[in-house]
């Protein structure tokens, strides 16, 4: 079996992986290889033919394939090698990490590189995980699968559909199915507030007269061969169906849009510590995981709302990998030392990481903790000294999600330092909602006074933040 030596392997050719590969090349990493399981680059964007991508990064409204092309088009000239139609089966950590790749053209090959970026994206929550009672007929699909059938395969999954969950893909598919002549009876959301972006509620449901039923869920799927209908019921504050509110809905298709889960089988196999809240790797300011030289970006780390943020993360990871390789080349990391793979740590104790591979001054992790009304913050820890030494145009990028919606919210990053608490960054958001990420930058110079811990708080004036 062949083994190829590279400097950086990027697993996944979606928006995160492509941005990472380009950033690494721009930062001077010589041999960069992207492994992609589909027969073309772009990942899930290829099936997202609606527009609205790139608002933030390009100030344009691009379709998914157009957005992907902005990055994929630069791959050949940037000198990035691509291995398509190939699946990474295993990542074996070591002083030189090994990635086992299987593809029809490539055969079974091993790529060996000191740095690997995990950019596999995420998967959808399924009917089984929601434990929806009933038969198990044909006609129950996740929203992303329906999107692939309709937009890539040219197949119409049914005639009359209900959508369970108001996640963004479900909302987009409500519109898409309507345009394809599938009657969308309604969207049912178990929570009292919508799961997707406000703009999608307006543009995909309101504009097409598709009702959104909040605090309502499917309590039974009728079969047994093809979906014959569903029973829906309203739910109480504890999300339990309220007896007597059941209603039968005639349909032949159930589309499930109930959330995404970071895809981390490879990360887990590599011994990377995972955060139980994000279900992605614990990462630092350069998106390095707890295993030195293994980086992660995009929906592998946490599920993003906007692809622009995914690309930004890819760039951070690509630059981070370049920085790591440069440190290594300068002898500041011990290549080949025993235990260089690092020791997986328990998430939530980021301060306690031992990194035998690193021989420069003992690395002290500055933990980043969610404070008031914050569900999680990524990165979960930073090397404050390292980050403080970077140029001012490379701030530490934080992403967080709130627990509860609110209006005119103060987002504050507070640092603990020997001299007392310091505000590292502050911004005011007109509205915050759990489905929408909040991005906050912390300038390197603000970290200079020796910050040892960081806390993120979101204090809202109140209201439901549903700025429709």
């Amino acid at each position, binding site marked *: 079996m062949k083994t190829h030596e590279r400097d950086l392997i990027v697993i996944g050719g979606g928006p995160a992986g492509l941005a990472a590969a380009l950033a690494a090349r721009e930062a001077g990493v010589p041999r960069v290889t992207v492994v992609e399981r589909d027969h073309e680059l772009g990942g899930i964007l290829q099936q997202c033919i609606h527009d609205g991508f790139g608002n933030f990064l390009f100030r344009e409204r691009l379709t998914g394939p157009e957005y992907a092309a902005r990055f994929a088009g630069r791959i050949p000239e940037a000198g990035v090698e691509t291995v398509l139609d190939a699946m990474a089966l295993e990542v074996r950590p070591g002083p030189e990490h090994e990635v086992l790749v299987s593809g029809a053209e490539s055969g079974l090959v091993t790529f060996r590189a000191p740095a690997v970026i995990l950019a596999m994206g995420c998967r*959808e929550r399924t009917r089984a995980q929601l434990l929806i009672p*009933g038969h198990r007929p044909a*006609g129950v699909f996740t929203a992303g*699968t329906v999107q692939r059938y309709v*937009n890539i395969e040219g197949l119409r999954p049914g005639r009359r559909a209900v959508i369970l969950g108001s996640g963004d893909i479900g909302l987009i598919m409500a519109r898409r199915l309507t345009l394809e002549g599938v009657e969308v009876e309604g969207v049912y959301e178990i929570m009292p507030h919508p799961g997707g972006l406000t703009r999608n509620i307006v543009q995909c449901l309101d504009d097409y007269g598709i009702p959104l039923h909040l605090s309502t869920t499917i309590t*039974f799927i009728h*079969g*047994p061969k093809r979906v014959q209908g569903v029973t829906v019921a309203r739910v109480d504050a504890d999300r339990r169906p309220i007896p007597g509110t059941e209603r039968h809905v005639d349909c032949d298709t159930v589309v499930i849009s109930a959330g995404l889960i970071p895809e981390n089988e490879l990360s887990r196999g590599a011994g990377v510590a995972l955060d139980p809240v994000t279900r992605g790797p614990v990462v630092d300011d350069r998106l390095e995981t707890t295993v030195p030289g293994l980086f992660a970006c995009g929906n592998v780390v946490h599920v993003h709302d906007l692809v622009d943020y995914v690309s930004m993360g890819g760039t951070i990871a690509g630059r981070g990998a370049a920085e790591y390789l440069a440190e290594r080349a300068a002898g500041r990391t011990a290549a080949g030392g025993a235990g260089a793979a690092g020791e997986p740590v328990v998430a939530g104790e980021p301060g306690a990481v031992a990194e035998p591979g690193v021989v420069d001054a003992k690395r002290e992790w500055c933990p980043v903790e969610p404070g008031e009304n914050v569900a999680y913050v990524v990165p979960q820890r930073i090397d404050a000294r390292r980050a403080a030494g970077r140029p001012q145009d490379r701030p530490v990028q934080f992403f967080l999600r709130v627990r509860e919606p609110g209006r005119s919210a103060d987002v504050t990053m507070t640092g603990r330092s020997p001299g007392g608490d310091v505000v590292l960054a502050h911004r005011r958001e007109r509205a915050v909602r759990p489905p929408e990420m909040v991005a906050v930058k912390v300038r390197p110079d603000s970290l200079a006074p020796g910050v040892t811990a960081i806390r993120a708080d979101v204090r809202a004036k109140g209201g439901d933040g549903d700025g429709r």
Partner: protein
Amino acid sequence: MATDPSRAADEALRLEVQADLDASPELSRYRLRAAVDDGVVTVVGEVETWDEVVAAGYLAAERRGVREVVNAIRAARVPPPVLEAAWPAPGPPLPGWVAQADVVVIGAGVIGAAIARELSRYRLTVVVLERSSDVACGASKANNGMVHPGIDPEPGSLKAILNVRGNALFEGVCRELDVPFTRDGFYGLTLTPEDAAILPLLKARGDVNGVPGVEVLDREELLRRVPGATPRATGAFFCPTAGMTSPYKLTLAYAENAVANGVRLFLETAVVGLDVEGGRVTGVRTNRGPIAARWVISAAGIYADRVSAMTGHQEFTIHPRRGALVIFDHQESGPAGASVGWFGLGMPKHSKGGGAMFTVDGNMEWGPDAEEVPDREDTAVTTEAVGQVVDKFSGLLPEFPRNAVIAAFAGLRAATYKEDFHIAPSRRAGGLIHVAGIQSPGLASAPAVAEMVLDLLRAEGILLIERDGWQPRRTEPPHVAGLPQGALAELVERDPAYGRIVCRCETVSEAEVRAAIRGLVPATTVDAVKRRTRAGMGRCQGGFCGPRVAAILAEELGRPTTAITKEGPGSWLFAGRTREGGLT
């Protein structure tokens, strides 16, 4: 047909059963009537609920001398079954069709397939008819895979005899047919001192049944051996011979081996009638035309009583008993080991209560429960059933991560009211052998059931001459998952399609999917591919591989993708193509 002395016995039995019905506090008000013919009790009348229908059936079965019960009672408050199979539409005879056979086997579940494989040793024309699009589509795909040790059945019952014998045969069968089988044993936990006190009696029953190596354990020994067991346990029994297999893989392997040895298997072919002349069966009528046959073996599972009724004289009733199973992510399941269940005097009368066991693929699996349902196709999973299963087994294994559920499904047990296997020649039509009432421990008993059916055929006068070149072995096609790297590299070298992974959760390659479709018992549906390859069984439940598997099926079968189904007619996946100009 019955002689005078037996008519007198029938009348005596009728009086007893009628008296029982009239004396029942629950049922007497309905004035149900019993009739007895040749030891078979038929009960008629109308009650309110399905549970009362079932209760009457059991009551009628209680008296000594009752061979079987035909339950013709209607329930006023139960609407007629709406889900029950519309039989496959009439169609043309399939390729390889024969108008005449020595033996026709009805049903390709694990029992029908095991019998067919046994028959394939001999110079006979054997035909297996299956109404579904694949083998193992009834109880054989929806049971927990446990190969029971045989400690539960009443001593002397067919269940006891065939279970213990079948269990002993399992290793050899699975080795010959290349089917996964593990033998890690079963712990039955007691939760009260009273239940612990009767464990020695249970062991005695095991000894009588011939179950090897049964042990009675005290609490400390149990907790030492099963560290995750509840500290509330008061004791346990241990059966070292309990095992696990893949029920649908075993069925498929039996069927493939039978086909390799000349048996003809016709799928989507339903028996709609029997031809009986002069008290002897002469053939079957199907939706694809008639087949003349000298012997007919009914292994029709949940519909076995319907086949019996086709003789004009129904000999028993099957009542579906549903069981729900819950499957957990194998990454959360921990290292595989022995199965665990509950044992106690408060156990339901007609169920062993299921277990917490590891599938041969390493997933923890809990269940099944037991619930009587009126509709023979009602495999719905209910919130109550899943809740009961999860509560029960998290009571036995309190530390197990109960939230890591990846799937829940239900199957129907084909129970008779006598609750024993009914394996016997029909008393109404010569040449017809009923293999009915096969529920748990039917899987464990399957190899022994096949032996017994051959013995019955011999007794009926069939001439069995061994076929030259009978091939007992069948080989499982290669699977990428779990293959050592060197072997995988070789495989991909030989056929690059083994390198193209279509199911990322379970690491299934395109070549495996194609092999399943080209197999001796070809997969023609998405679910049939899933059972053979595991594509779609993982965490994403087919979200990623579904479109790819459908496309490969379409290509291999030469059909449009829109004609591909989940599990045969009626389970359509696509309503058609999108509008013109769609991306393809």
